[in-house]
């Protein structure tokens, strides 16, 4: 139940406020979800969807930073650094 899933917004419907919705693509399967909690979300943004509601927008820069940190760990485990 608690599994939030990332997906990409492919369409935003007209309504605002409580009833703001959009179509989100989850790797080939798309579904209408509530975007009421992400008024700033736009088409092509990636969001985490949980029980029919988008709860957070994925941040591209932060995602890259996480991958960079992981790559740096590899450097460490490779034996070079301290």
């Amino acid at each position, binding site marked *: *139940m*608690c*599994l*939030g899933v*990332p997906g*990409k917004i492919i369409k935003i419907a007209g309504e605002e406020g*409580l*009833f703001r919705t959009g179509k989100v693509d*989850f*790797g080939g399967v798309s579904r209408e979800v*509530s975007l*009421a*909690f*992400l*008024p700033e979300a736009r088409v092509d943004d*990636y969001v*985490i969807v*949980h*029980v*029919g*509601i988008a*709860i*957070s927008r*994925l*941040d*591209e820069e*932060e*995602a890259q*930073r*996480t*991958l960079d*940190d*992981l790559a740096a*760990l*590899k450097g*460490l*485990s*490779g034996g070079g650094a301290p």
Partner: protein
Amino acid sequence: MKYVDEYRDGRACLDTAEAIKKITTRPWVIMEICGGQTHSIARYGLEDLLPPQLSLVHGPGCPVCVTPLEVIDKAVEIAAKPGIIFCSFGDMLRVPGSRKDLLSVKAQGGDVRLVYSPLDAVKLARQHPDKQVVFFAVGFETTAPANAMAVLQANALKLPNFFILVSHVLVPPAMEAILSAPDNRVQGFLAAGHVCAVMGYAPYPLLAEKYGVPIVVTGFEPLDVLQGIYHCVQQLEQGRHEVENQYARSVRPEGNIEALKVLAEVFQVVPRKWRGIGEIPGSGWALKEPYLSFDAERKFGVARVTAQESPDCVSGQILRGLKKPAQCPAFGTGCTPEHPLGAPMVSTEGACSAYYRYRRHEGRLLDVAKQFSPPRRQER
């Protein structure tokens, strides 16, 4: 898919595990809070990649597991009433109540429906003005925004036939309950990423300071979990206890402001009983004054039910990180996903079910059982 595949890269997982081995010099016990993380750990066999000094214990973050028996019994009672459409997430249908589960209510002719979202239940209430539609609103801070939104939508649509049976639980008080228990073994936490995506992580520095534990906000993909473990171990080894955010692509320190506004509007903090753990002060949400008319318990006047747990189930100790599933005498014998004795065997996020699905054939499970079990219990 973007934001998924790169965090499941097997090579990078091995490298990260290697980095964890490099920095681990002593035994540590780390708890992952969220059932989604437990699932990932079991599914990808992450424990096998870790150095033997590290123990991962699985926390109470499975909503299906911690919903009290009484609440399941109330759900069963309401669902069996005539004129009701009872809606729930699929996981809840098979959780054993003290006499039966929701699925058997359905088998006996009750209108019990599985929905993907509480917002679908609002739609059903619109389509069936002649029926009373009840949604079973359980879960953590992650599910609560959707449930609060369902109430606000029903309110805006002036639907007189939509109700929720609420049993929401909150993570930080449960973390504190685990840490303050005299038999606590947990030395560091992986905090639940999506809970923090909603709530932010403002309460955690206080917990980290008070109990001297590192808390790393962590995501759900295998690389996320391993990186969270790395940061947690690094702090433990260096004697630090700070709050770090491994899952920054999804979690902002302040959480989701819009969701927080709606939660504050609809819910109030109340004491809540956790299945297998007991009552924890300030650990739940219930409906607030202007929205009490949506409260299914009030509307359908469910009597106080006294509930009986199966005496064989040790889920309370599992949820507090004191035992592993294989140490339960009923694991895989009296208790299986087809015939669950306790809630952790029902949900895919439950530790017992995750172990059963992915690990039951492994010899290592038995070793773990030997290592932890008090001998008396094993002889049964």
